[in-house]
Structure formats: C-alpha cells, structure tokens
C-alpha cells in the first residue's frame, strides 16, 4: 500500500484493482471457483477458435449414428444428423463466450463514456444525454436487434453489434450515478484545487473509484447476452446452420426434451454453468471491490 502512495492518487485504500482484490476474491471460494470455471471455458473456446481440435470429430461431421445417447464414442451423444454433441458444444463455446465478452466490452466502452460525460458535466448535458438513454431504454430490445440484424445482414458481426447496442444503457446510468455522487467528494475538490484537467480528474480519480460497480454490472451483462443470442438465432437473424452456439443448440434440443433429453441437457448444462459462474464471480467482485467494506477492514 505504501508504494502506491502518490500525491495525485486518491487514498490508497480506495484504489481498486490492486493486489488485495485478487486476495479478497480468493477468500470467497464460490467466486474463486467460478473464476477458474470461466477461465477453463474461455480457454477451450480460444483453443477451438485457434484450430486446436479437442474432440475427435468436427462440429459439422455427420454420421449414420443418429440421436445416439451418451456413449464412450460420443461422450454427450449425437444429434438428429448424427453429429457429435460434445464437438458442437465446444464449437458453440467460442461464439457464446465471444458474444458474452464482446457485449460486455461494448457495454463498458459506450456505457462508461456516455455515463462519464453525463455525470461529469451534469446540468443540461446530463438531462439531454439521460433522456437519450430513456429513449433507448424504451425501445424494445428485440425490435432494435431485428432492425440491426436486417441492416447488417446475418452473421456473427451483426449479432455482436446488435447485442452490444442494446446493453450499454444500464452501464451508462450506473456510471453517471457514480460520477454524480463522487464528484462532490473532497478528494475531487482537492484535485480541482490543484488545477488538474477535467480528463485527468475523470480518468485518474472518478473512474477508478466507480470501477467496482461497473465491473460487477458487466459480469451480469455476459450471461444475459449469451441467452439473448439464442433468441436472435431462433428468429433467423443469428447464425446460419451448421454453425451453432449454445443458444441454438439448446433451442433446437428442447423439442426433444422427452425422447432425447441429452440434446437439451448438455447445452443447457454449459449455459447454466457459465451463467452461474459469472453470477458468482459478479457477486464476489462486488464484495471484493466495494471500497466501503474494504475501508472498514483497513481502518480496523
């Protein structure tokens, strides 16, 4: 902590993302475990994307082994066209994870910038920008996604942009609220008194203090994006077959719920695990990043 003592920085205890965050995360076993689950899934997705085949089959390789249940040959069984389900889930992971993370990233960049401007300047600009968010919020997500899908055509890029564009408003409101609250704090006043520039204040003082809630909110964006993607694919604006994601696998599989439950069980298991992990991680990060609880401990 002492090493970080710097005249321009706020008190070290409130500076987030220092070592103690990871240390704190370690102390919350569910969150720490969730972190590793997510890391493992991301690794699998990344390897699959880079072309390292982890399964003996290709995701679109058909066989005459239609709708086989789990066996030693096909660990998670096969689908209606005799394709290995495990291979398809591994293939689908790359899109589902990419969509989750990219949407979170887009929401972070747009939402933070928008909210920061709104919250920092306040007044008329704030009113104007926030009414913009209200309007964007009032448009049904599905409608916006369909419009974007139609404009950009099908495919992964369209899905990524569509989901990104409907998910930044929450972040923007959150950042604005944080900024409005923080900008009247004494350390900001001190920074102003020192004559620091606006940009400096935003990026060096306000943002680092607001980052905790933002990261937590983003971890909740990821699972909702993974689920929304399946909706898009279902109405024909998402992926075109044979490409698949967890969402499309689940929406294709649920019809066979009674006759061939493995088709719905395994994709949903992965969605479930990922969504749950992100939620646990978000929960854990909320605790780990909350400056007040930390302050309490350090003061003690």
């Amino acid at each position: 902590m002492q090493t970080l003592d710097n005249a321009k920085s706020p008190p070290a205890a409130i500076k987030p993302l220092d070592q103690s965050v990871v240390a704190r995360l370690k102390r919350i076993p569910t969150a720490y475990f969730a972190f590793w689950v997510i890391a493992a899934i991301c690794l699998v997705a990344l390897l699959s994307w880079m072309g390292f085949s982890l399964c003996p089959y290709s995701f679109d390789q058909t066989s005459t082994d239609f709708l086989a249940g789990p066996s030693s040959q096909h660990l998670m069984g096969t689908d209606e066209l005799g394709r290995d389900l495990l291979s398809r889930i591994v293939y689908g992971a790359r899109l589902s994870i990419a969509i989750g993370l990219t949407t979170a990233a887009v929401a972070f960049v747009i939402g933070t910038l928008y909210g920061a401007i709104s919250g920092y300047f306040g007044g008329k600009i704030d009113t104007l920008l926030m009414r913009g968010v209200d309007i964007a919020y009032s448009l049904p997500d599905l409608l916006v996604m369909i419009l974007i899908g139609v404009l950009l055509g099908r495919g992964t890029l369209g899905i990524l942009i569509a989901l990104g564009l409907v998910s930044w408003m929450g972040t923007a409101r959150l950042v604005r609220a944080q900024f409005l609250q923080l900008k009247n704090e004494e350390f900001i006043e001190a920074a102003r008194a020192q004559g620091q520039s606006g940009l400096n204040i935003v990026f060096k003082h306000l943002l680092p203090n607001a980052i905790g809630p933002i990261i937590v909110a983003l971890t909740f964006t990821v699972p909702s994006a993974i689920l929304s993607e399946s909706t898009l694919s279902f109405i024909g604006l998402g992926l075109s077959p044979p490409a698949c994601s967890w969402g499309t696998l689940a929406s294709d599989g649920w019809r066979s719920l009674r006759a061939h439950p493995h088709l719905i069980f395994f994709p949903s298991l992965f969605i479930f695990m990922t969504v749950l992990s992100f939620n646990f991680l978000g929960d854990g990060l909320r605790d780990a990043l909350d400056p007040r609880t930390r302050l309490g401990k350090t003061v003690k």
Partner: protein
Amino acid sequence: MTKSSDAKSDDRYLIWRLAKGLGQCLLALLLLVSILSLTACTKARSRFEPGVLRVNLGTEPPGLDWHTATDSTSFDVVSNLMVGLTQYTNDLTCAPSCAKSWEVLDDGKRYLFHLRDDLRWTDGKPVTAYDFEYAWKRLLNPATAAQYAFFLYDVVNARDYNTGKLKNADLLGIKAIDPHTFEVRLSKPAAYFIYLTAFCVSFPMRKDVVERFGDRWTEPENFVTNGPFRLTRWQHEYKMELSANPQYFDGPPKVKLVKMFMVPEASTAFALYENDELDFIDNRSFSTPDVERFRSSPEYKNFPLLRANYLAFNVSKKPFTDPLVRKAVAMAIDRSVFPRILRRGERPATSWIPPALPGYSPDSGLKFDPVEARALLAKAGYPGGKGFPKAELLYPNRDDVRLTVEATQDELKRNLGIEIELVNQEWKVYLATVRKDAPPMFRNSWGADYPDPETFMNLFTKDCGNNDTKWWSPKYDQLIQAAEGELDAKKRADLYRQADVMLCREAVPIVPTFLATQNIMVKPWVKGIAINPLDLQFFKAVEVGGQ
C-alpha cells in the same frame, strides 16, 4: 461512524441475499410444479366433452375467403364449412354433392350440372346455380387477384379475362341456365376437370353477402355458408368454433361442435393432447421425437400424402443458370437420408410425379451418383467444387425443414465439395421472398389439390403463378397442354411422363427430395377420422363419446 454504517449496509446486504435466495427457491418450486402439472394435474376432470371435437389448427388462418386463400390452414376450415358441386369420397373419387348429377357433353368440352333443390344457405335462402356463376366469375375477376384463378383457366375465355385481355365477363364459359342448372364450357377437354369442382376455390358464394360486408364478410356474424358446419365463433389467434348446421342437406354432422384451437408450438399442442385437452392432432402438433415415442401406440396412425418436397433453383441466378450444375446437385443428394433423419415414414423421391399417380416412372428422375455428379460439376467449370460461389439456400423457419436443408447442405459439401449458405425466414416472409425474387436455391413443397398429375406438372408452366424458379420451356408447356386435353388415359400418362423426364432429368429446375406423410393421433373416444392423401380433413362423419 464507519462501523455503524458498515453494519447497516451489511444488514441490507444480508436481506438482499436472503430475498434473492428466496426468489430462486420460489422459481425452482414454480418450475417443479409446472412440470408436475404437465403430467399429472387434470386426471380428475372428465376426459372429453361428448359431441365436441377439439383439434389444433396450428395458426390463425390468413383468411376464410376461399378465393384469396392459398394455404392449407384456411382450406382446412373452409372444407368443413362449405360444399361444392361434387365432393370427395374416401378413395378420392368425386361423388355428387350440391350437384345431384352432371352430364359431360361435346367430347368433354361442356359440363351440365343439375343441382339438388333442397340446398339451403345457413341464413335459409336456397343455394342456386347463380351463386356458382357469381363465385366462379369472381374467382376469375382480375380485381379479386386470386392466385388460384389459374384453376379455371380451362373454361372458355377464362385466361384472357383473368389476365385483363378481355373485359366482358359474359363471354366466359360459365352460365346459370336456371336456378338448378349450371353450365360450364371448356376451351378444350380436360380429364381432371371434375376434380376441380370438389376443391375449395370452386365453391359457391353469396353475392349479396360479399358485396354488403366487403372484407368482413367472413366474420362469424356475417358469414353465410352451405356445408355441414357453420362458423359460430372466431376468437382471433385463439380458437374457432364450428357448430353443426341443422340445415345441411345430407343431415347434420354427428358432432355438435368442433373447437379449432390455434396453438403454433408443436410441443405445447402435444402436451395438450396428452392432457386430454385435444382429441385429435396431426403433423402440426407433432415433433419427430414425439412420433418416435408413440409409434407403437394404438392412437397413432401414419398416412402417405400426395405432398412432394423439393429443392428449387432460381435458374436466372448464377451458378444455377447452367443445367450441368443443377444436374450435379440433383445427383449429389442421397435422398435416403431424409426418411432416416425425419423418421416419419417419408419416401425418397427422384421424380416429380409421385408413384400413386399416372405418368409416374421410377426412371424419370436422376439417381444418386456422386461420381457422375462430380464429373458434371467439373465439366461445368468447378472441378472438385473449386471456384463455386457460396450459394444461398432459403428455407422457412420450421424444425423439420431445418433438418432437411442441413442434411442437403452436408450432402453437397461431402459429395461435391461446395458450400451452401442456409438462410431461414418466417413462413409468410419466406413466401413473399420466393415470389418476389427467389434466392439461387430454396426449399419448397407442393401438396396435390386433386389426385391427378396435372396438379403437380402445371406448377412449372410459364403462366403458373406458383412457378418461382424462373424456368420455363415452350416444349414443356406444349407437353402439358397436350396432356390436359388428351382423353386417352394411356397416351395422357405418357405425355406427363415425358414432361416429368424433362423436369427431373434434362432441364432440372427442381430436385424432388421426398414425399411427406401425415401423422395423427386420435383419442379412443373419437371415431370416424379419415385422412386422405390430399390431406383434407372432413369432420362431418366424426363421432365423439359413447365409449
């Protein structure tokens, strides 16, 4: 200070966590209850209502005006509300209905229908030949814009009147001689003509009702019909109620009420059937896995249909402008894959005329031959699929259709090395797209309107409103025209066979894939449900109850 506020926030946090946990528990409980209720909740209730048949229509019918409707959902309703000059028996011959008898005169160029005199509309007025004259002229009137107008093109001057070349409707070969005699003159003999008089689009219509209520004439409060049932209730997007018509000339049907629900989701409808809330379900309420589970049930039946599925090319779009490419595709698809993945008893098809109809020959179409297919593709300039553009294949968004196009995509990739991009659209959008500007490839299907090869072969003539392939050939049109007018059954079948060879072996604007089946499940307390290969569902002979 810090401490107390900390404690407060800790408290709040705890409450929040507790609430969240409770919420999750509740959700889980709700799920459990709903799953249980699906299987076990209504056993105590009576399992059926005597005299009431409950069926699933699938979707809201786009319209009940049988001149502008083109879809089977609308026809399913209309064929229970209305009767025409003739009607089908169970073995698909035409039996007298509104017409008690008819004469075929002038070597098959003039038909004289003699109507029964005890026919009544639901409002009590008699059904007359004038109602038929009005209806047939309305169907052909260009202002009606009926896609099925081509149905009556064999009538004298009908084509010219419908295409606007002729303005005077009195010159049409359609005439009510007196209230009980209806005369039709044809421009050439047509062997299949009598079948047309049993199909929905040729049913009579009340001029006064149509003109008085305009677009709303098919709403229950305005609708006037003449069939075994009458429309008594139409709750849009939910259900239709058809009550027995006491004035029906053949005696009122045995059920007093048919409830037609509109449940688009197959698995929901199937659950309703299992829960005794539907008495009869067909393909619309079936997913393939359900068929597998119930194949051995006594309630399950499977019927072959005269409904052919095909892959069509837009021959004006590259690379399918080249017949070699089209042939290569036709020979690279192993049709035996379709029954294996759909598992409802489908029959693979290579010719456009199905086996049950005259003109069918097993050799009319191209057989699966990947080696020859690759050779053809190489000859067309794409050896091993190299340089082949990524072509789009459009299909309507339905599960079983998706499986078939995915299988097709896989066959083409494996056997020809070409990549196909699958594009899906919602049913109505798909229909509009295919009509307006069809993509290079699309998946389509055609169900016979009457049991004659003409209903299939006519589809790919130049003037047919349903020919979306942009392909036509004078030779093909001549063959069809000759077959239409040929009265010798053997010669006629041979003409259709020649046209079929042209369609499926030489020009190949379409690739027939398989013939569909109808799968139904009927509760044991329902008697008299019959499915014919035309997939027309008549409920007038059905009985419910009396176990």
